[in-house]
């Protein structure tokens, strides 16, 4: 069954009188457990598409359904709730909260979910161990390398056991080797935990690691290929 359904999705940005279409009539599905890359040059609409699927942005036309919920019909507060309980995000620039330690950053979504302090700590610690950062629980973001920060971000995205993790250029700020290690980590988590990953990238090496690649150009899908893993 499809976890994500995207139908005729269009997003047009307006600046004054100028209209810039970022996504134009895109339709596709992502099944539960997939490890899918959205590939394309910058400006092809990858980030916009991820934002629309994550309910961070509102489409100009078309529909997004995630886990059977029509995102178009939700209010801002309902969207926030939906993201909290169903989605995990990894951003290009890590985007950790700088006043919180690695452990506290990972605990943050659990805090919003109302999980008890002890349970929060246990699950956050476990998530950080899964990404190989068991030693760095009490470091603040600025005391961690780029790769380590991004792994904290992955742990934060996974700690709530979401059904879908959306990652926007997660390796773009990392060197090739660190980037590949991160992708292999995500792949392992996808395999071991069954979490669905949808990530955008323009890095050919990262694209190679994906099980399915949806190629975008100028806001349209130009190719959709599945590979055997």
């Amino acid at each position, binding site marked *: 069954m499809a976890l994500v359904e995207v139908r005729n999705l269009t997003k047009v940005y307006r600046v004054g009188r100028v209209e810039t279409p970022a996504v134009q009539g895109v339709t596709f599905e992502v099944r539960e457990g997939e490890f899918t890359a959205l590939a394309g040059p910058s400006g092809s609409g990858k980030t916009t598409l991820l934002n629309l699927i*994550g309910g*961070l942005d509102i489409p100009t036309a078309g529909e997004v359904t995630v886990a059977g919920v029509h995102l178009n019909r939700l209010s801002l507060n309902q969207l*926030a709730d939906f*993201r909290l309980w169903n989605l995990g*995000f990894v951003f290009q620039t890590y*985007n950790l909260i*700088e*006043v919180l330690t690695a452990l506290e950053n990972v605990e943050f*979504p659990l805090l919003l979910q109302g999980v008890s302090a002890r349970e929060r700590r246990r699950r956050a610690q476990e998530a950080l161990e899964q990404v190989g950062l068991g030693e760095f629980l009490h470091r603040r973001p600025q005391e961690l390398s780029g790769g380590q920060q991004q792994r904290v971000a992955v742990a934060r995205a996974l700690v709530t056991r979401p059904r879908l993790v959306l990652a926007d250029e997660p390796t773009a700020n990392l060197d090739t080797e660190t980037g590949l290690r991160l992708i292999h980590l995500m792949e392992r988590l996808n395999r071991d935990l069954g979490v669905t990953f949808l990530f955008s990238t323009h890095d050919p090496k990262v694209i190679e690691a994906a099980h399915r690649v949806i190629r975008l150009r100028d806001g349209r899908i130009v190719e959709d290929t599945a590979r055997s893993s």
Partner: protein
Amino acid sequence: MFKLAWRNLWRNRRRTALALVMVAAGFSFLVLYYAFILGYLVNLQNNLVEAFTGDLQVQHREYLELKPLEHLLARPETLRLQALETPGVRAASGRLLLQGLVSTADFWQNLVLVGIVPEEEREVSSWARHVRPGRFPEKGERRWILLPPKTARRLKVRVGDRVVVMTQARDGTIEARNFHVAGLLRAAGLDQGVAVLHRRDLEHLAHLPPRISALYLRTRPGVTPSEVRQRLEQRLPDSLQVRTWQERYPYFQKILTLSRIGGLLYLSILLLAVALGVLNILYMNVAERYREFGVMMAIGLKPRYLRGMVLLESLYLTTLGILLGALLTLGVWLLWSRYGLNLAAFSQGMEFLGLETRVYPAMDALGVVGSLGLVYLFGLLAGLYPAWRASRLRPVEALRIVR
């Protein structure tokens, strides 16, 4: 969330410290200025009570200042003793008030003639301390008069000179007699239209048996004038009316209350400037975190929690500022209440009026609640706009902001 807001406050230590100093200084200034106003008013009130009104006055119910010869109180000595036996009464002095004229060979002036018994008055008012030059008469001395400085200047008389005092007697005749100027009376609340002389002399002049217009009373410390009034009312005949100085001169009380409220209003305008400074700091704190707010909202933080978090930061800032300000205030207060603040250098008029020139800090419930309330109100108002801006952010817009 509490921890997060707390840590957010310390992201930029220098900026937060600056905001704290502003809040602390604002709070401290507010409290101390209010304490000054109140201290000044208490001083003024004490001076007025001492020099003019007494704590309580006993008069005939029908007595009218416009008809000073009617409804006077008879047997003043008995009445005075009766009052002095009432628990809570410390001192009592009967005064007789009549219209009259004081003149020299060349000048004259209409005055209210106040007849007193010096040894009684010494216990009730501060007049004995405020005769300069000259002196307050001793027991047994007669045919003296005390004039306010302005009246003395107008009549061109000095201490020791003679003046003629005239008044209309009870039978309608005009009586006049010589008096020597014993001194110049500089007591607060006594304007130039008053002259003080011995009550017996005034009674004599007006062809009156012993009579007084009112009995002026001072209460003992620890009892309120209204408590004593109740006791007096039980003892005295129904024809007599006992009133506290506030009841007798309600406009004084109104002026005192208005001055306090006016002081707070004036200060709230000053606080507005402090609030704008804090607003600026909080806003900068928020504006540089838009991207982080975007991340938090992407994770699932609801706008209202975001608003709450920013408000919480402002609440922390205000509370810390108040605590810091309270310490500052305490230090100043201790010094101030020990040494007082001498206003003589700034206002010669006070001394001239016979007012106590040293002002000590004073505080009341309105001051405490008002200062705390105003600082919190302005602190939260300063946090409201940044909080509102933060909660209006759309995650995708906030995430697009590159630092």
